[in-house]
């Protein structure tokens, strides 16, 4: 199998996997970065969202050979101590219930804010509508998004 060099959360990692293996499974099962979640495998729920060169990307449909050479950021790299403005906002609003989708929620917003520090309501709705939460924390996510944008622009 081919060897791929990946730059994940600022660290260089090497994996020996099939080139079409989705980044999701490489992160979770080869590198034990389980903060990125499997939700559907067909980009329909957003649970696996990571940043590829600062762009929010669904890891479940991104083959590792595409991700190689790009800067990959996962929830573990957003801030290990939980003090990223988005994590702080999520903490302040007490967003999570089961928590399973929340890394995808936060990484989606992180991608949006990388592109635009002050996104419009329409841009927020477009981005966040693609990430599903079965516990129904959307009401708090809506508040936390506003809080995170405030924190981010401080």
């Amino acid at each position, binding site marked *: 199998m081919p060897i791929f060099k990946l730059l994940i959360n600022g660290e260089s990692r090497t994996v020996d996997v*099939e080139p079409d293996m989705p980044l999701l499974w490489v992160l979770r099962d080869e590198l034990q970065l389980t903060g990125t979640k499997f939700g559907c495998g067909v980009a329909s729920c957003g649970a696996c969202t990571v940043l590829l060169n600062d762009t929010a990307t669904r890891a479940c449909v991104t083959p590792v050979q595409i991700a190689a050479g790009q800067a990959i950021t*996962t929830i573990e790299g957003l801030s290990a101590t939980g003090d990223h403005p988005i994590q702080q906002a999520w903490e302040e609003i007490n967003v999570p*219930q089961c928590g399973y989708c929340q890394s995808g929620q936060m990484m989606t917003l992180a991608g949006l804010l990388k592109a635009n520090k002050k996104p419009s309501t329409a841009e927020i709705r477009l981005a966040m*509508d693609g990430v599903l939460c079965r516990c*129904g924390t959307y009401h708090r996510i809506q508040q936390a998004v506003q809080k995170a944008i405030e924190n981010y622009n401080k």
Partner: protein
Amino acid sequence: MKKVPISRRRFIQLGAFTGSGFMLGVYPTDWVQAAQDLPEDCPYFQPNAYIRIEKNGSIIIFVAKQESGQGVNTSLPMIVAEEMEVDFQQVHTEVAPFGSLPAGAHDTGGSQSVPGTYDDLRKAGAVARTMLINAAAQKWQVDPHLCKAEKGAVVHALTGNRLTYGALACDAALMPVPTEVTLKNVKDFTIIGKEQRKRNQKDILTGKVKYGIDLQIPGMAYAVVARCPVRGGSISSVDDSEAKAVPGVLKIVQFEGTGKPMHVHAGVAVIARNVWAAMKARRMLKIVWNEGPNNHESSKDLFQRFEQKSKETPKQIVHTLGDVAQIKAPAKRSFSAQYAAPFLAHATMEPVNFIAKANAEQCEIWGGLQLPDWAVGEIANSCKLKKENIKVNLALMGGAFGRRLQFDFAIEAVKIAQQFDQAVKVIWDRTDDLRFDNYRPANFHRLQANWDEKGQVQSWQHHVLTTPVAFSTDGPEAKEPAEMLGGASKDFWYGIPNIQTGYTPIEFNLQCGWLRGVEPVVNVFPIECFVDELAQKLKKDPLQFRLSLLEGRPAFSAKFNDNWSQPVDPGRLATVLKLAAEKIGWDAPRPKNHFMGIAGHLFFCNSYAAHAIEIEKLGKKHFRLVRIVVAIDCGVVINPDGLRSQMEGGTVFGLGQALRNEITVENSQVVEDSFYAYQLARYNDVPPIEVYTVPSEAAPGGAGEVGVATVAPALCNALAAAGMRPRRLPLQKAGYTWET
């Protein structure tokens, strides 16, 4: 302060389980907790399975109910800590290992975690506190009544002497277990009723938290399964030559299906070094299935059968009051309507998965199980193991909503692992998860009411038709399949002199199971829409009409059978309806084209809730969700933030059912295969939600499910006020569109 007896020395009998056993049938009727044997060197004081105080002062509270997002990892230890008199921030919490408590203690369902264990957990905390006080009093040679516990220490009132719980641990361990303990007054609570962050919130937000799907067992392989698409089918032939050639594939194994209670589908499992290899190889399998005789049913035909059968006499009469037959009324004083709702899938965000390591004699399993004792018994039966040779490791669940009350996936994983020499993690992809669920039954309702010349409703008839869970779990011979009658049966809350509820179960070859909100969700939609329709017919305000059928009615006990009675207080229901109405501004002037709907109900966990929803009509079958208000009376509130969270989440869960969720069946196979087809509530579906709580000192009720049932009827009632009257869910299917 009230004194409560604790029976037996060295054994703490913590009373009868107060929850109802009707739904799951496996709740224990009582449980007795053996005190831990005292270790020689006394590393810690453990008066019962819930509490450990170490010599170094660490206080650990063990949580028996399992966390799946509902917040029991926070609310339950709060109850223990309250009576222990410790600072909640200083307490560590841990999952109580399976086997550390009697059978049934880990069962998590029916919104029973708080109401079912509140008294026991208080007693457990009070026992620890009492033994620590007695230890300090003995040490100081003083009267224990002059000592009090505060913030993890015992203080002597006269001298001010103070010893921490850690310092007292080994002395407390030598104290006799008290025969009775004193519980705190509700008004003296310092932890219960104060907001607490979810205990694992930080780990969730940093990606450190481990759900079942994240666990790694040394040497573990991964498996995905091709399952017979029809329940009850079998494997005719398998050609796995191409699949075997996929790099990374380790072994391909077959297993037979099982019957009741869980109906594991026959399947072929690809075991591989990684999930991706297993998924690729599964596509290469060439399998011929024998689908069996029941392979041509469809949900479309089912609803036609429902409709037809609804006109016939119900198979069972489950509730009778007065005599509906004698109430005759002309057509102008009579009304009938039909309502329907589809099969639903759980669709937890963490897809079903399970880990097992097993051989012919023993096994170890890892994963989320809401009813682990029942699961272990059935795994033993299905896999020819002895129960005592099954080691269970319970895992955090990324949502459950009843999916893990079922345990088909656990039996399946053990069957696979028995054919492999290492641990196997079975991963279900989303298509597997949606197509092999245990579905909330499809249901249909025919209601009819008559009223007299003064506009007083004289009779109410409700015919419920569904595909019962009991037919799946117990077989078609199930004696009492009327499980879908919560709300429509003896617990019906409206005061009408003549009532009859009938029930007709229909056989359908699809595995059905319990979904968050269970039977009240099924029945409250038709009941709360129909009562609203009656108000419209009688030209009465829908809120006032409901109150006229509730207020002044005394509380009563609905006795379903010898083991299950449900207290019903129409007054508490009236209170939540009024609170929701007040907060949404029911009587206030409204902007043009704005309309409101309301609905209330009692959930069988002793909680009452009402939703009031405001919409703006934007066109034919097109509306905007403006605002949702929910009012809740669940007695004593343990964690106010947790309660709000559950009510918001329940509201969104109910909104998804009202707007989008639907499972359809063709050829006895589920059609939906991803979230593109089985649509959930989304970010942009959710308007502002406000939660209001009725202050109460009543015994606490549950909060996990009571927020779901009244969303769909409140929304449909708002649409009716705007001139639309949907009677079938989801609205999307009926051509409705919406915005927020």
